[in-house]
């Protein structure tokens, strides 16, 4: 457990010092949210209708933007090889990396989403559902991203192929995420069931993604 926390702490320190993580994802999120209403025009009703979907799609893209940096730097400098000689199994290394990625990308975006949603005239009754669904959904997104990052870790320009590989896996999160957020007013009760499905997806990813990533990383090093 101490080793696990040490790895997360190191990744958080690196993300803060190198600035690539939180800043870039938030900047991208903000840029899209500012530009979208300008591009669509001042139709408040329309903006309100598309707000949850727009927020979710931007969250998805922001997570993808930083996904190829999950294992790549550690592979480049040889740290990854040393990870596999450590006392902690590779599965936990992958899980620690996913959690660090979530804390630096998904979580800040989920927290910022209601505030940025104001730019899209997001209904204030949706703030809390959005926060809950995005916090949960982005955890699943980060875990899935580690699988893609592990597949493409040896490739120099793996960003594109990573996106293509991971996007299909993101679809369920997107569907139930938007349902949990947007469906609130249209269909009472849909929030609860969608959130439960999101929780199920996140839990399944929590078990499966580290195992898959670890197997891929081992195969990469051989």
């Amino acid at each position, binding site marked *: 457990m101490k080793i696990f926390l*040490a*790895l997360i702490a*190191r990744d958080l320190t690196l993300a803060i010092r190198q600035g690539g993580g939180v800043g870039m994802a938030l900047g991208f999120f903000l840029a899209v949210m500012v530009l979208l209403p300008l591009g669509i025009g001042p139709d408040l009703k329309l903006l309100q209708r598309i707000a949850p979907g727009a927020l979710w799609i931007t969250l998805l893209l922001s997570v993808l933007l930083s996904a190829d940096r999950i294992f790549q730097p550690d592979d*480049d*400098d040889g740290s990854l*090889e040393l990870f596999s*000689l450590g006392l*902690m199994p590779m599965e936990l290394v992958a899980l620690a990396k996913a959690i660090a990625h979530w804390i630096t990308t998904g979580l800040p975006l989920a927290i910022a989403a209601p505030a940025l949603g104001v730019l899209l005239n997001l209904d204030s009754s949706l703030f809390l559902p959005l926060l809950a669904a995005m916090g949960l959904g982005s955890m699943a997104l980060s875990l899935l991203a580690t699988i893609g990052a592990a597949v493409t870790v040896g490739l120099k320009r793996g960003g594109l192929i990573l996106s293509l590989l991971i996007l299909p896996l993101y679809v369920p999160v997107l569907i139930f995420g938007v349902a949990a957020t947007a469906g609130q007013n249209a269909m009472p009760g849909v929030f609860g069931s969608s959130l439960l499905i999101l929780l199920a997806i996140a839990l399944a990813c929590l078990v499966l993604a580290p195992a898959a990533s670890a197997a891929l990383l081992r195969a990469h090093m051989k």
Partner: protein
Amino acid sequence: MRLIADKIDCERGGRRVFSDLSFTLGSGEGLLLTGANGSGKTSLLRLIAGLGDPAGGTFSIDGMDDDLAIGQRSHYVAHRNALKTALSVEENLAFWAKFMGASDVAAGIERGLGLFNLDHLASYSAGLLSQGQARRLALSRLELVARPIWLLDEPSVGLDEASCKQLAAAMNSHMDKGGLLIATTHTGLGVSFTKTIDMSEGA
């Protein structure tokens, strides 16, 4: 403890690098791997560490009663230094000490910094180090936690004369304490090895 390599075959990209390589290394012994570029020195070290599977043959250790893998008993220092330039010298060592399960992280860091006199650079960013200093920092990992097997891939590359001597002293004291040492070199390391394998011969 003894490390036993039994009829190891190594293939890379379909090419047979070496075959039928066997050796036994006991406590306090050192094995030097020499040979031309591409003769499989690094490949052999990686196989021992478990960073790959041999095409044939097995590695085993005897005389140990826990079930750690060979790699988990080994310090492996290869060409890449595994340093984070955004962290300070001390933070780099602290992370690896924690990651390798050091019981006393502070003492480990002190030993690591002391190995190559890096104390005065402790709070310095690792990104500002010269090649040789970065190499010394990578080698300092050897002192963070005690592991019985040292796998060193051309450890002296980039080191100045004084550091080479410190490295030799560290390797000798490791073997005196009963540790196993396997190293590759082109230049000689100033340590008397028990055994030498010329990798070029098997190819």
